[in-house]
């Protein structure tokens, strides 16, 4: 956690921690993608590969008591906020040891004890929840912050405008993180979204910035300012982070799209060349903040963690039948 978020660059230690977390997300997602293709998963997964710098760069500034809400592409946010990789993997495998005991699954990983209010299958669904959490925090006056992660697709939901209006008026400690990955599911967002998304914030007097979402430093710095502003009681902020999903919308899509294309290989390749993890790796090495040996150790540690999580998930039992009728009421 950053002691002085006014600094505009992360320390070397922070940078390494963020690198490891980004890599963990990537290797988890790659494993899930491979396991899906091999028929080892029960449902399609929406992978976060390519967007890791956004979740990690933002959550680096957050504490357990701060809240985040995520979307259907939620594995990355869950891990970035400190969610347990074993518990997430078991959840995706529908096991009773899962973080939600197998009741939510891949699109709904949540750990309320870590401030992860849930990943939402309703596009934009987390925005109102986070607005409420931010209101609660503002009343408690403990400097807590609430962050809504959503995509360019959610920017066209009415609730985003409603939340901008109210959070600005009430000066809530809320941060809007729009991960603009250029696609609203299978539609190019420039065909369904008018104008610049960040300008919606300006219309409500909410400070908004656009950043390169594949540049960890840029995300980290923008989030640092937004978090500071929220903790100081100065109100909400909006960050539009341009990024790209290296995988498709959902891993099952090759099946149901039946060969239909919605983006070109050239476009995907051009974003692979802007891989946020590769960029961070190059920076760590070129600025001598890490050695190749250190990075190799991190890679090995991450792979072992992923393997352990998968094995834990496979070895865990499914939920017992009686659980189908539990948990509806407190």
């Amino acid at each position, binding site marked *: 956690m950053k002691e002085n978020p006014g600094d505009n660059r992360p320390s070397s230690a922070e940078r390494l921690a963020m690198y490891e977390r980004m890599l963990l997300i990537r290797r988890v997602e790659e494993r899930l993608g491979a396991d899906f293709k091999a028929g080892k998963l029960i449902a399609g997964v929406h992978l976060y590969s390519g967007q890791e710098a956004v979740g990690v760069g933002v959550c680096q500034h957050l504490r357990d008591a701060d809240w985040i809400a995520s979307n259907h592409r939620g594995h990355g946010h869950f891990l970035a906020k400190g969610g347990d990789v074993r518990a997430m993997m078991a959840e995706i495998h529908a096991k009773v040891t899962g973080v939600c005991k197998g009741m939510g699954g891949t699109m*709904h990983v949540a750990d309320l004890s870590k401030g992860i209010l849930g990943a939402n299958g309703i596009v934009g669904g987390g925005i*109102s929840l986070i607005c409420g959490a931010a209101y609660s925090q503002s009343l408690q006056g403990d400097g807590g912050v609430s962050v809504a992660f959503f995509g360019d697709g959610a920017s066209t939901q009415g609730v985003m405008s409603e939340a901008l209006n109210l959070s600005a008026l009430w000066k809530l400690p809320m941060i809007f993180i729009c991960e603009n990955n250029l696609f609203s599911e299978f539609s190019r967002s420039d065909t369904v979204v008018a104008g610049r998304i960040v300008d919606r914030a300006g219309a409500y007097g909410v400070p908004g910035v656009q950043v390169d979402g594949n540049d960890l430093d840029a995300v980290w710095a923008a989030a640092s300012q937004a978090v500071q502003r929220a903790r100081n009681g100065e109100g909400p902020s909006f960050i539009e982070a341009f990024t790209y999903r290296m995988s498709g919308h959902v891993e099952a899509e090759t099946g149901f799209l039946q060969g239909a294309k919605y983006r070109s290989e050239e476009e995907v390749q051009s974003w692979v060349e802007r891989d946020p993890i590769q960029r961070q790796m190059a920076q760590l090495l070129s600025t001598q903040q890490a050695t190749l040996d250190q990075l190799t150790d991190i890679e090995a540690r991450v792979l072992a963690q992923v393997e352990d999580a998968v094995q834990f998930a496979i070895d865990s039992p499914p939920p017992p039948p009686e659980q189908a009728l539990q948990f509806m009421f407190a």
Partner: protein
Amino acid sequence: MAKKRIIQAINEALVEEMTRDERVILFGEDVEISLFGDTRGLSQRFGPSRIRNTPISETLITGMALGAAAAGHRVVAHMMFANFTYTGFDSIANQAAKLRYMTGGQARLPVTYVAAYGGGRSIAAHHSDTPYPLLMNLGGIRVAVPATPEDAKGLMKSCIRSDSPSFFLEAGGRGGEMGEVPDGDYVTPWGKAAVRCTGGDVTVVAIGSMVKLAMAAAEVLRNEHSIHVEVIDPRTLVPLDEDCILSSVEKTGRLVLVDESRDSCSAASHIAAIVADKAFGSLRAPIRRVTVPDVAMPYAPNLERLVMPSVERIVATIQQLTDSRP
């Protein structure tokens, strides 16, 4: 005991619960001035941080209530007219009803949605709906529909103290009705029906504001036709006191349901299905429903009276059923 109006009883419950627990907060459209009187005076008493007017943004309000509850408050979200909950229904159907289940029991969501329902005042189709059938179908929402000032106060307290999302539905046109309200702190329990009058010929289950009509019908039938009606007020629809209804039907052998929601998939048809399943052998006559036909609420008073359940319609329905009394 003292005689109070329903709306006063609700107001008292809010004052007492906000005094009892400082985590209770309330927000919604125009709650500071209060259209119905239920939240009147709270703003002066508890201040702007606990009672707050929101923008007209129902989609946001319903979800905000849940987020604030997850983060530690006990939230009362006032939706004004029940029709406006449709605008905010995403978070009710997709979050409130499901969050606890889909997080494997992690989420504790003390939220009370308050809304005024029902017709009878020529405010037409966008201000007169009775939405509890939809809420019952969601599964994860508790639904309270008080018929008396006593229960209005006790059920509001039960809603606020519940760790699960609940709906408190107040009958829009009935806030001025008087009734005895006990002194001191009490709650009306979930899933415990009240038998409003006993009788051996026919069971009438009446919901919310329909209890008053059913009681009036029972009196007419007793005085003019010597038919003895047992009137049951379920008080909460989720959970529903099935045992009370079933044991009454086992005694009377006849069932009439009075419900001011539209007939298709109404609370009435749900209760009819339960009784047909579990007490078929006790029935000596078909189950009858007195509901609103599947139309929007008309504006013209004569048409509104025609579609709403009435004492006359309840009396006629019961007379038909009991014509063949042994």
